[in-house]
């Protein structure tokens, strides 16, 4: 009796587990074969976009001329890093919204967690077995997706790399290639933040520190290097520490607490993403040492936007997810339709600070 009861419980648990991993791991399909709809949707989307984002979109779309044919209903597979990260949840929503607008069908899949490089490759390999015309890939690290890209090439699926880079040399050696590439200049993100910080500190100079993401990850190293170069070239600025925050709130909180303990005259902390910047700002606040210190993040997530408005965070580096996803899809469509593509397209960036945060209302 009781054995049977527990057996039922176990099987239920396992079922739940499967459902849970399916919920966060696999695709969220949408199919929009209806070609009449998108035109009205496009109008809606245009009015919803903030003027700053519209300017970004215009700059980016100029790089992408001539435009591909819309409303083809082509199936495009998207593989993002992980839907446990709010940033990629936002990107997924952006892809799905823009797909409607452009008249293509998009599936978004992801790795179960941000560090699971093997599962991400397996997901990609499963995707290559489907009937996608093109795929947009954002790898966890430069090498994990290489074998999957080769398979996609062999099947004639066009491959666009969005965001973190797939290592070109390794890919070439493995006999594969990318059809298109769109990314954010990570070094430039770090450099922009650092330039704002240096400017704010002014001629007095002073001590600054960097909290990285996971050491070795592309975004983390790129942003760190960009910021470091600016700090090192600026007179009077002393970069005292680069610490690994692992993209984790609690780790960043503790590091910030320890940093101001060791350097009470610290003038600024640059964090490689907003999640860590928010935690660092909180830690300084809790230690009673927030005043006169600049805390800057990257990504401009919604919580960061609210914190900048409330004066808790000094700034962040923004780029529009919606414009970014749109450009990725347009590149993929152009590849499918046989256009020649530029070697790499860079998404425009903007520094959002206390001074200009008002111009970034309804950012997406």
């Amino acid at each position, binding site marked *: 009796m*009781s*054995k049977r009861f*527990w*057996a039922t*419980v*176990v099987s239920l*648990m*396992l079922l*739940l*587990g499967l*459902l*849970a*991993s399916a*919920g*966060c791991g696999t695709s969220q399909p949408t199919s929009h074969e209806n070609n009449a709809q998108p035109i009205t949707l496009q109008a809606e989307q245009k009015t919803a976009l903030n003027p700053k984002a519209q300017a970004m979109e215009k700059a980016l779309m100029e790089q992408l001329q001539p435009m591909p044919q819309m409303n083809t209903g082509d199936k495009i597979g998207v593989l993002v890093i992980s*839907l*446990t*990260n*709010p940033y990629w*949840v936002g990107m997924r929503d952006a892809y799905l919204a823009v797909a409607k607008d452009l008249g293509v069908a998009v599936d978004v899949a992801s790795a179960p967690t*941000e560090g699971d490089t093997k599962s991400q490759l397996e997901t990609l390999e499963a995707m290559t077995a489907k009937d996608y015309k093109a795929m947009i890939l954002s790898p966890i690290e430069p090498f994990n997706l290489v074998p999957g890209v080769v398979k996609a090439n062999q099947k004639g699926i066009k491959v666009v790399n969005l965001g973190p880079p797939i290592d070109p040399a390794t890919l070439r050696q493995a006999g594969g290639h990318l059809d298109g590439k769109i990314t954010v200049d990570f070094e430039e993100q770090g450099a922009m933040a650092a330039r704002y910080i240096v400017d704010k500190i002014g001629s007095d100079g002073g001590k600054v520190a960097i909290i*990285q993401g996971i*050491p070795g990850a592309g975004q983390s190293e790129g942003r760190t290097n960009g910021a470091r170069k600016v700090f090192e070239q600026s007179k009077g600025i002393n970069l*005292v*520490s*680069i*610490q*690994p925050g692992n993209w*984790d*709130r*609690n780790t960043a*909180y*503790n*590091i910030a*607490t*320890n*940093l101001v*303990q*060791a*350097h009470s005259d610290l003038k600024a902390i640059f964090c490689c993403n907003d*999640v860590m910047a*928010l*935690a660092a700002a*909180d830690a300084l606040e*809790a*230690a009673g040492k927030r005043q006169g210190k600049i805390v800057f993040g990257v990504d401009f997530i919604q*919580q960061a936007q609210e914190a900048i408005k409330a004066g808790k965070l000094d700034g962040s580096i923004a780029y529009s997810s919606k414009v970014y996803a749109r450009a990725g899809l347009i590149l993929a469509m152009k590849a499918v339709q046989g256009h020649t593509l530029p070697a790499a397209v860079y998404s425009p960036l903007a520094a959002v600070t206390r001074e200009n945060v008002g111009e970034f209302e309804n950012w997406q």
Partner: protein
Amino acid sequence: MMNESTWKTLLSRHLSQLLLIAALAGLMLYLSAASPFFWQWENLRNIADQSALMMILGVGMTLVIIAGGIDLSVGAIAALSGIIMALLLKSGTNSTAALTAGLVVGVLAGLSTGGLISRMRLNPFIVTLAMMSVIRGVALILSQGMPVYNFPAEVTWLGKGFAAGLPVPLWLALAVVLAGVLVLNTTRFGQYVQAIGGNEEALHRSGVQVRLYKTAIYALSGFCAALAGIIVAARLNTAEPTAGWMFELEAIAAVILGGTSMKGGVGSVAGTVIACLLLGVLRNGLTILSIHSYYQQLLIGLIILFAVVSSEIREGIS
């Protein structure tokens, strides 16, 4: 029953704690010589504050490992409890009820894990590994992968407030540690925990309700994890489904470093606490001395490896 060997294990247990204290003292002396910022009341208080989470998780994990088990689900439970509390707060539930619900969820998760392990005699490693995924999955589904933030002041007080000059998380950790020491050393339950890890079959044959006690151990571990999860959420003023990532491994590392045997039967809460402080001081020192981030992981791993190897060698000798 086993007089001579008991003395020997007792001696070796205290020996490993003494060695840990010596290592801690050595590290602290070195850091105070190397940096003028280390030996300041505020910094020492920060270290204690930052170690509080691991102490709370460590007490639960110590009981589990002494009883011959392992609990890989604590990080996920911490995340789920934080999310449940946060979502309830956002839906207008009062703080006490939301906090209680967070803790109850942790205990329930522990009860189901413990029930599976003891009733069906399943391997704790596999069960808690599966539960880790199940529970984190539920946290992700409930939160839709997004952080939930901005809590009332009485909740954030639990994470970054002060009472009588010390951080609240530290007080909570001290209470959990004290309870852990008392339970393990002065109650019948504590004796059973050690006996389950030593020889479960013998205990079962002597008529003790082993299943019940085993389930209770995982429920306690779940409670500790939930408390840690609530403190993290309160401290960061944000609950997120990815909170508590790798907590289980950090807690296990602290327990093993503290001299508790992975084979079960032998271990101490005090050892775990000292190990948590040692790791806390080490992390603090690495930041204060501005050690390059690439070397930090390597160093922490090497120290744990060294501790485990030396304790194995010592056990072999004695």
